[in-house]
């Protein structure tokens, strides 16, 4: 049996799965002051008389990290940035405790300038005086060679509770994002640790041997002990749970659109051949652009409780939510009220809904029912406009080879999946407008918990080989080794697969779930003085987001 728990903002849901099918589900109100209490409560309820010894794994999806950031429950972080030349320091300082220091490597990972130990010592003193316990160290091009970051770490490690290193956040380039990611990681580290410690105690009450996983932003899971090194991976796992939930409830092997229509917003996600798409560089949280691998979603301000208004004869829906639907005593008309008027939903008091929609009807000088239809139509068209824009963005993604530019595959959705409160009322029209079959999966009210329960462990890995310098780097694993001049692209791919497998197993993956995909495959002949000097090989692989073996319908 698998236990999946989703700690959402309002509810905490739990599902118990046997042979990948839901056998029990329970819902409790989330206690934001004590998430652990909610976890305990829902677990006891869903398990009932079932012995915890029957559980093969427990997977959690929690807004803990996200909330810590959004609500500012974070530690102050001292940031030590080895920026080298390029962007001005004023654009790199992420907080008042940021210090730009000397020392940097260039784009090929060659050390151009060393660090200045005296300078670092001075910064350590300053940060200690300011009462800072958490530090982030980030170097430009540290993913090419982390030497500078490691050199600084050696000088500061013993003086602070926690040190986050930029190159351990992601193997991808982008210095400002690396700074933001490292900062957030160090900032939530304390809160996350406390939470994980209590989870571990909580599980120990049942059975210390049940593996516990936590969902990441990319829709993949990681064993909870492993997750503490890089807690930033777990931010924004809420939308990921929802997308993985939809994936687990439908039989999707083609390009498709998934919509989660909530009270305030509608979240759009795209599947390419049944695989949810990732953000190209990383997710954005609270204005911080990060390198955190995350599922690509677009959130638009249209939901069941969006404010409906009529200004100068023009109808508008959203983006604001003033409260619940008028039928439930809310302050203004909403799409939910329109549904109630049309008999598509029975929520709250119909009289109130009618009164609210009548205001709009008289402003538009239209009959009541027609107005309710217009509101639904307006909301549906708006959503579809955003879906199309998102697909266009994906299909217009710049590419860097002649082959991809001329032959590149395009996303062409063949199906649409809709979940959320208003899905029953809105899905048919959305499908019509988008001209694809539309599906409303069953069990959708606990989709997040199911998605978490069935998500497989994911990760990525980057192999860089420079045969001119005779050097190979796998920055995610902290590997730096010599390579022969004869090292080839094929050797790099083989190594990438091997190391990726080891990495994902260490993260808690099950052998059957390791489906490896090479996502970047480049090999350049390096020419110096008109002679071939070596090869610059860049291979990236991933275990892509998906369901654990056997869960696919």
């Amino acid at each position, binding site marked *: 049996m698998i236990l999946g728990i989703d700690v959402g903002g309002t509810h905490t849901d739990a599902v118990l799965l046997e042979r990948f099918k839901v056998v029990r589900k329970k819902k409790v109100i989330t206690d934001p002051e004590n998430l652990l209490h909610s976890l305990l409560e829902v677990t006891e309820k869903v398990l009932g008389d079932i012995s915890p010894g029957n559980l093969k794994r427990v997977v959690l999806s929690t807004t803990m990290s996200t909330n810590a950031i959004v609500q500012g429950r974070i530690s102050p972080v001292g940031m030590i940035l080895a920026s*080298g*030349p*390029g*962007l*001005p*320091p*004023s*654009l790199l300082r992420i907080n008042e405790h940021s210090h730009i220091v000397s020392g940097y490597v*260039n*784009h*090929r990972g060659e050390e*151009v*300038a060393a660090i200045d130990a005296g300078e670092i010592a001075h910064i350590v003193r300053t940060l200690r005086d300011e009462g800072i316990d958490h530090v982030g160290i980030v170097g*430009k*091009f540290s993913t090419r060679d982390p030497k500078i970051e490691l050199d600084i770490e050696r000088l500061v490690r013993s003086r602070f509770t926690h040190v986050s290193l930029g190159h351990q956040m992601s193997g991808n*380039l*982008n*210095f*400002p*994002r690396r700074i933001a990611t490292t900062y957030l990681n160090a900032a939530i580290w304390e809160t996350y640790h406390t939470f994980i410690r209590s989870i571990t105690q909580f599980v120990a009450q049942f059975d210390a041997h049940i593996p516990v996983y936590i969902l990441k932003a990319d829709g993949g899971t990681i064993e909870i002990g492993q997750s503490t090194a890089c807690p930033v991976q777990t931010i924004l796992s809420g939308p990921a749970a929802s997308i993985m939930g939809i994936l687990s409830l439908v039989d999707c092997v083609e390009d498709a659109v998934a919509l989660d229509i909530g009270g305030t917003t509608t979240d759009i996600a795209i599947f390419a051949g049944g695989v949810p798409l990732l953000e190209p*560089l990383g997710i954005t949280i609270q204005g911080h*652009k990060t390198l955190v691998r995350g599922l690509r979603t677009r959130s638009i301000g249209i939901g069941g409780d969006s404010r409906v208004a009529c200004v100068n004869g023009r109808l508008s829906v959203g983006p604001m939510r003033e409260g619940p639907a008028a039928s439930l005593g809310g302050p203004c008309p909403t799409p939910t009220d329109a549904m109630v008027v049309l008999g598509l939903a029975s929520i709250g008091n119909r009289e109130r809904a009618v009164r609210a929609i009548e205001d709009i009807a008289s402003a538009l000088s239209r009959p009541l029912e027609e107005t309710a239809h217009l509101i639904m139509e307006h909301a549906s068209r708006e959503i579809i406009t955003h879906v199309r824009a998102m697909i266009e963005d994906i299909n*217009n*993604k*710049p*590419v*860097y*080879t*002649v*082959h991809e*530019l*001329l032959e590149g595959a395009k996303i062409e959705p063949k199906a649409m999946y809709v979940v959320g409160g208003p899905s029953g009322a809105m899905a048919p029209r959305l499908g019509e407008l988008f001209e694809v079959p539309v599906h409303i999966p069953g069990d959708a009210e606990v989709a997040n918990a199911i998605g978490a329960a069935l998500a497989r462990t994911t990760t990525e890995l980057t192999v860089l080989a420079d045969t001119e310098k005779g050097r190979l780097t796998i920055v995610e694993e902290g590997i730096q080794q010599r390579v022969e001049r004869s090292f080839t692209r094929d050797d790099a791919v083989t190594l990438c697969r091997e190391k990726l497998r080891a990495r994902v197993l260490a993260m808690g993956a099950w052998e059957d779930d390791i489906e490896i995909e090479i996502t970047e495959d*480049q090999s*350049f*002949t*390096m*020419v110096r*003085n*008109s*002679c*071939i000097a070596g090869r*610059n090989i860049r291979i990236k692989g991933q275990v892509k987001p998906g369901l654990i073996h056997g869960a696919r319908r």
Partner: protein
Amino acid sequence: MTAKKKTGLIFFPAFDWAISPTHPEREERLLYTQDQVMEEGLFDFDNVIEFKPGLATIRDIDRVHICVPDAQHVITESHLISAGGAITAADKVLTKEVDNAFALVRPPGHHAMKVVHGARGFCNINIEAIMVEYIRTHFGHKRIAIVDTDCHHGDGTQDIFWHDPDTLYISVHQDGRTLYPGSGFPDEFGGPNAYGYTINIPLPPHTSEEGFLYVLDSLILPILADFKPDLIINSAGQDNHYTDPITNMNFTAQGYATLNDRLAPDIAVLEGGYSIESALPYINVGIILAMAGIDYGNVREPDYDPASIRQSAETTRYIRQLSSEIHDLWKSRDEERAKLIENAGYLRRQRSIYYDTDGINEEQAETIRVCSDCGGVFTIDSKADTGRRIFAVIVPGRSCPKCRTKGEQFFETTESGKYDYVYFQDRDKDIFIRK
């Protein structure tokens, strides 16, 4: 530093295209530039927007070039993309989606002349020229200034706009006595109907920031102020850099950024630049920041040492003298033109053109109608040692009725006979015919 601008970036490094495996124009050329641009996170700035290049069409090429035997035979798909990238940059600027744009694309184009028998100086088709005529066809006739800051004389662009008084072509380059293609002297000053609208500024080897910026401030900017272009285009070659392996200049990333900041081009298009590791990553970051109005003061090469690349006092004196002579020439362009044409009806020039990349020799005779009302109709008789001989009639943009009538007559009355093909290119009506 100017205010923040919305900058379009068309980045197309063509990672799967090379002239040959060890050629400077190979897959690796923009690899480290990509790394630097990505690592600096430039695409994350709200005012820097990346666009995918469109594909130029054969029609876009035929509007500018006379390709022998035809456009399909002298290009690869990669050329359609790099020209398409320049066109995308122009589209985004002219539709005001962005304030300015940089086409960071390859392969380059400024050595491609009007007639194309093959590749010269790594160039098959002239991507800026194709962009310029695209702009005029789709957005109306415009006065356009092209400032070519590639280290090599842009002899192709010069040739294409030689007779066009509405296109001011200014090339700053290493003196042709010391570098390919060996042309680009101040007396190359434009055709009889566009005299003064080609300006060449050959600088001595080892010219550094000081010299380039002096020429910009004291010569180029004043001439641009006189010309009053609707659009300024920068052919942003990056081979003036002190580390470039095939040239001998001492320009820097900081210098390129400053030049771009002061010139404030509407559109920049990458040309040459072959110091792919030590120069291009830093120059391109500098140019992008300067175009977007973001502080570029911290951009420099790892081995930057201004003292070691400073130009000599003699170079400084020489450049001051040269700038002042060229400025005088510009101011007296109308009188000089009158002397040049006297009472001639037609003028003729005879040239030999060498295609170094493809090893082709061409003999060309060009005849232009002297005209004060337009750029003048002209014909080209071109014979290459590929065995092909062609004749082309070109009716210019904003042509006067007389030149138009003459052009149509020339085309009608020219028998194919000794020519493999006879071409008619009418820029006004956007017509291209081959018979």
